């Protein structure tokens, strides 16, 4: 459709109006982020008075200095990195071998194992039994519990299994001739050929780990272990109701609002940094996700 140059006047008008509408939608998507960024760099009084609209008013970085001087901010940031990196590596350590085994035709009970994985996508026991199970396993308040407890999910396994199944058998024959065993075939043939699919799964894991807050909030009591999102919730959601606390933060240079905004900006930055990679692989991933049972 792109290289048609025969427009009528109506077509030209249509194309222009369409672009304007898309532009408006894109701007309204972007605006809240700009607003928050500007708020974080404004002075507390200007923010409180509702004078921040588009650009910072009375530019100051005091809110950031306040945020960065908070030890809990740093420890939660560190924890988020631990959960994201540890969790993603743990996920791949389960998902790659598991998906490979499920893709092998000679596996006895292959239908059963596949169904066992797929069934969990349609039915799960729910919050309470999962929580009690974690408690019974002694995984409350532990780094390891968060990392292992959410390592695998049916969708990622099936996505990768489908990709493995799509790789022609002929690729592994040479390796088999040289006497390679299953581990070697997986590691030397399938993994290198599946880099895009593995990258997609890894990005799914990274994003959900980075953003995950609910279970971390439920399973972790110890402040030292909470990730950034739980800390964020504590500050932004719980303290926002607390007028008195908000007033203690208010001074000429920063206010509760600008401090919240500054924390939001700090936690978005890493997502923005990996966003180009996400864009590259997610579009593919969501289409690979036309998952078959």
């Amino acid at each position: 459709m792109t290289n048609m140059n025969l427009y009528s006047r109506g077509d030209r008008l249509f194309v222009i109006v369409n672009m304007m509408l898309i532009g408006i939608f894109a701007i309204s998507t972007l605006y809240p982020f700009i607003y928050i960024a500007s708020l974080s760099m404004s002075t507390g009084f200007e923010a409180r008075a509702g004078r921040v609209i588009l650009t910072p008013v009375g530019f100051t970085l005091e809110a950031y200095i306040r945020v960065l001087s908070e030890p809990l901010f740093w420890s939660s940031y560190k924890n988020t990195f631990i959960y994201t990196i540890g969790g993603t590596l743990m996920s791949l350590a389960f998902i790659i071998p598991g998906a490979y085994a499920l893709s092998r035709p000679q596996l006895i009970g292959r239908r059963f194992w596949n169904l066992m994985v797929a069934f969990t996508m349609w039915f799960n026991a729910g919050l309470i039994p999962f929580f009690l199970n974690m408690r019974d396993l002694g995984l409350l308040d532990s780094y390891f519990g968060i990392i292992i407890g959410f390592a695998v999910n049916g969708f990622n396994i099936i996505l990768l299994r489908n990709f493995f199944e799509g790789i022609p058998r002929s690729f592994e024959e040479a390796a088999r001739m040289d006497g390679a065993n299953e581990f070697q075939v997986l590691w030397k043939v399938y993994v290198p050929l599946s880099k895009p699919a593995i990258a997609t799964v890894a990005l799914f894991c990274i994003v959900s780990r980075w953003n995950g807050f609910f279970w971390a909030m439920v399973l972790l009591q110890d402040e030292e272990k909470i990730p950034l999102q739980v800390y964020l919730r504590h500050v932004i959601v719980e303290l926002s109701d607390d007028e008195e606390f908000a007033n203690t933060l208010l001074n000429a240079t920063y206010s509760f609002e600008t401090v919240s905004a500054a924390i939001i900006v700090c936690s978005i930055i890493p997502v923005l940094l990996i966003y180009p990679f996400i864009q590259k692989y997610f579009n593919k991933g969501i289409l690979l996700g036309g998952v078959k049972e």
Partner: protein
Amino acid sequence: MIRHQGAGPATEELVIEAREALRHRVRRRAIWVGDHFRREWQIYVLLAPTIIWFILFLYKPMYGLQIAFKDYSIFRGVAGSPWIGFEHFQTLFGNDQFLRAIKNTVIISFYSLLFGFPMPIILALMFNEVLQQAFKRTAQTIVYLPHFISSVIIAGIVITAFSPSAGIVNTVLGWFGVDSIYFLTKPEWFRPIFVGTGIWQEAGFQSIVYLAAIAGVNPSLYESAVVDGASRWQMMWKITLPSIMPTIIIMLIIRIGNMLEVSFEMIILLYQPATFETADVVNTFIYRQGIQGGQYDLAAAAGLFNAVVAFVLVMAANTIAKRYSRTSLW
């Protein structure tokens, strides 16, 4: 072994022969299985961790679901607690808060569907009409972004933007002489804010599916339409939209199948006691009763109810969609 009266020696011989053959087959099968594991054990080593993980973290909780029918106490454990039948379910269906949660779940899902479902389709159709590739890519990059931002941050933005003191929404309303409104404490505002936030966050990303469907439309349809002098507006309505209709219907069925899956994490972040009336859904009810209130058995019963209804909906949606498209969703 049963010996029938009057069975001659010939029959007996046949029986013995048949047993012999069966024994032989079983032995051969055993040898084959033994051989198979000796040859292919590595595959099972690769599979084992995943299966163990599924049993330990997803199937064991299903066993734990039995507390929905028990008077659960932490000290007695899942197996040791006494059975009480359907008592928790009776309690739930006599509980106004639970009934309210079901009602809210259905209403919020319905609004999300009504306003949220068409948006990505419209966006995809619009993106398809953009001729400048650079503009299209930039706009797509922007509208996909909120999908990757955590719900805590989105909630933080919403809370800040709607705040009565400094929020931009009240600032703008102030220009028109409207008094400051504390939106997040007003029950009548919760659903519009929640549904609107969901659309803002997901509409762009969800348009990818429809863009992929549009990419698959046969270009010759457009070529002949151009020869016939069709305008772009006509082509969008008469060619693009009908061509992606199967995808639209499949997505609609999936959405209806996932009705109960309102993003309760976002609700937990945005609601407060003042807005429970319109905001409390089944999952937030479970969270409050069970994890915050310690009534594990009652909350597990509510969860079981939720899971069974969701399972039936998803299975029905899958079957209908399969029949419709002749391709499985999964």
